[in-house]
């Protein structure tokens, strides 16, 4: 089986680096550190908050604890950060470094949280879930802020993450709901204060954290799909409002069809177009939008945890004319000479820096539709 999954190390790294003023100290040989950095910084080149213990031959033979100790002390001095997240990868797990003992042996001015993130021990999602639970011990009991919630499930390197969050916040605010914390894409203080929320909204991953917070702080949680499309967004807002017993202002929740009217004939022509989708938890909600609101026919819907060869084979055997996935799908898209719409991690050959061009929410429905249409219209010549 072949999977396009980064393994537990990547999931842990992504969760930890989502605390935007934290520093991630990877206890790994250089390659793992490089890889994590590479994927994170496609659209974030100015945000480098990681360091590595540089496990070398010597550490492999004699153990990496000394290197870790040295790194902790130095990081404590060098960084002005409230949190050091120590992420231990494959090598220390095998050689048996006692991370906890090393951390206990040093006096640091920062909070330190460590986690065993050996890649071979699980999937990327499992790494993410576990990491958040580890980080949760930093949270503190708070008075509940009425009509506030936490959004759980994000990573700082999700495609369109900042734009999506901005749009989701806009929608929730217009419903009178405040976003307390976005996990994992928030500051340390916001994370610590997460228990102040009246509700946790789990958007695809992070259920374990939500469970933990329910037990530890009594914060209830709700699991919803990622808000793609007009209907998907409406459902998202309505469900949340219902749970928070906030009346829905239909007028404010009304979406503007005007942008769609301007290109509606193209939408007519693309109705019934066969497409395929692959991704993490974002995949199913986007497929729903494509199916129900754009009228596409979903030929193949797969998860990044499924066997990739089978996915490719299924797509080859289908009539797929547009592919939705990550940058990894460029290969099969090129082979089949069809356009690829990138919407899910990892995206390393497109940037997303404009915060007013989301894929989520009402505005996201417009932006995504525009992207799809442009991809199709400009692709026409490629078939020749």
């Amino acid at each position, binding site marked *: 089986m072949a999977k396009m999954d980064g393994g537990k190390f990547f999931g842990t790294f992504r969760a930890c680096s989502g605390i935007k003023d934290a520093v991630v100290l990877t206890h790994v040989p250089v390659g793992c550190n490089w890889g994590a950095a590479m994927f994170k910084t496609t659209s974030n080149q100015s945000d480098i908050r990681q360091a590595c213990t540089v496990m070398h031959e010597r550490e492999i033979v004699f153990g990496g604890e000394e290197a870790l100790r040295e790194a902790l002390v130095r990081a404590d001095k060098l960084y002005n950060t409230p949190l050091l997240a120590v992420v231990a990868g494959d090598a220390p797990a095998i050689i048996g470094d006692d991370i906890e003992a090393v951390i206990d042996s040093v006096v640091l001015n920062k909070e330190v949280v460590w986690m065993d993130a050996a890649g071979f021990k699980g999937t990327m999602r499992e790494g993410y879930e576990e990491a958040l639970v580890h980080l949760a011990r930093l949270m503190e009991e708070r008075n509940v802020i009425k009509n506030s919630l936490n959004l759980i499930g994000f990573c700082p390197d999700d495609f369109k993450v900042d734009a999506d969050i901005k749009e989701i916040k806009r929608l929730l605010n217009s419903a009178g709901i405040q976003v307390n914390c976005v996990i994992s894409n928030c500051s340390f203080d916001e994370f610590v204060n997460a228990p102040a929320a009246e509700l946790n909204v789990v958007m695809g991953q992070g259920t374990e954290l939500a469970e933990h917070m329910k037990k530890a702080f009594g914060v209830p949680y709700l699991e919803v799909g990622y808000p793609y499309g*007009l*209907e998907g967004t409406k459902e998202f807002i309505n469900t949340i409002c219902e749970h928070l017993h906030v009346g829905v202002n239909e007028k404010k929740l009304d979406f503007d*069809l005007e942008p*769609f*009217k301007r290109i*509606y*004939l*193209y*939408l*007519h*022509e*693309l*109705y*019934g*177009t*066969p497409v395929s989708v692959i991704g993490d938890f974002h995949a199913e909600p986007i497929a*729903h939008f494509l*199916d*129900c*609101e*754009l*009228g596409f*026919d979903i030929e193949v819907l797969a998860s990044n945890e499924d066997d990739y060869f089978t996915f490719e*084979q299924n*797509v*080859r*055997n*289908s*009539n*797929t*004319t*547009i592919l939705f996935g990550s940058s990894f799908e460029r*290969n099969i898209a*090129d*082979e*089949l*000479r*069809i356009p690829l719409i990138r919407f899910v991690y990892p995206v390393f050959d497109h940037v997303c820096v404009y915060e007013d061009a989301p894929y989520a929410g009402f505005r996201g*429905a417009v932006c995504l*539709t525009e992207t799809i*249409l442009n991809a*199709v*219209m400009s*692709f*026409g*010549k*490629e*078939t*020749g």
Partner: protein
Amino acid sequence: METDVKLDIDVKAERYGKALETPEIAGRGKGVLHDIFRDRAFHGVHQGTTWQLHRYGINCKLSGSVYAVTEILGAIPLVHGPIGCSFHQRLTPRRIYTPIQDMPCTGLDENAVIYGGEDELRKKIVDSYSRYKPELIAVLPTCVSGLTGDDIQGVIHEVEAKVPCDILYVPSEGFAHRDRRALDVFLKDFTKAWKDPAKVPAYEIRGYGHEEVMLALVDQIMDDQYDENADNLVNIETFGRFSYGFESELKEMASLLGKMGVGINTTLLSCTVDAIKKAPAARLNIVRRGIRWAEQMKKEFDTDYLRRWFFYTGIDGTEKFLLYVASTLDLDGEAEEVVRIEKKRALQELDKYCKTFKNHVFALFTIGFFFTPYSVKTYALDFKIPLKYVCVDTRWMRAQNVSDETTESMIRGMGELIDDWDLGVELVVNPNLHELKEIAKKVDHVLGERSATPIYEKEGISMIDTSIGAYLFNRIGFNGMLEFASYLTQEMKKQRNHREPIISKFDYDETYYPILADPMCLASREMWSTMWRLRSG
């Protein structure tokens, strides 16, 4: 000196880590249906726009002429007119997905209008040859050059010695075109032909532009060549516009005809200039649109022609067509056997799907148009689909200025044919929503066309979009039918979510769907309708 260092583009592709195998396993994805879906997505995305604009206007003759010329490999259209004509014709409606990049223009200005533009034309012909080295320059006059009375043919005659390529003159001035009632008249004739195929109308879309090019090619470019050794050749008329899946159709045609002992001389106009010259080497032209050019070829070169009409669809229709081709070429015996075998094979394969269909009950929802009864016949007799209802939406025809009288006669004709063929379906004209819902409850599947499906889905009526059938039923060959049957079988199994397509949320005008119920748009449509009527022939 020999070296095995590869330096072509393949090396670059390999160097950049392309997939290391050509997937032998790619199956369905490389077939007919895939071909059509791709064309429909990447080219057809523009179709709605061009159809929409036809409610507010039509393009001029130049448009069709430009398009036709650009289908020819090695030909360049040279527009003799102001720069605006060539600017906008680059986006010829028939090929918006591939704008025409190489289109020189004489750029007539005020001076040229006063003093004449022949000199500009003379220079431009020479310049176009030098720049593009085409095999053919097609000179396309415009309204302006038509009005100023430039002697284009005279200029061509002067210049032709100076350029090594052929030069074509096409009368493409854009101020003569069909009138508003043309479609109404045509449909009326067509309806008669449904019952009596001998009465098929020899229709010509006046002001179309395409026909002018075809005629000009026959008159000016084709050479009288009769190749003694190639007396079983046919030409096939192509028509790029919206002809989705053309390549796969052509492959099948070539294969089928080949087995029958028939060779394809060329596909007009999607061919080279040289092939056009040699077109008269064929004994038969297979015509898919207007027949005037074929009649002219018959007159000048004694090349026979066969118009592929709607009654040549379906299994029997396809067989009939192929046999007719064989007969015209005196190949009856051997060809008959080939056709028989192919038909049998197709029927055998089709039978697998028919077994699935027969266990379900269907309704068909369609907009009434040229071939409706024959499409219904194909569903009922070829696919043996148990059709209980045929719902016809005639609103679209009214939007195309087809009179109520003609519409009524079409519906009457349809009903009569359905009875004659003993199809046992109930014809329902313009069912309202409630009626359609009731019908949907009484059947297992509703087959619909893409134009209406989104609207009805919103109301909870789930339809299987069979608009792809339009591109599969009309092919010369049996494979299209098989592909459709396979596609329908798959679609029948799919679970259909309740959908609320965005396009179903708009307010459409009832009559002129899919025009939006917007006062400004509707007023513009009315203006066009009125002004056009005033110019009726």
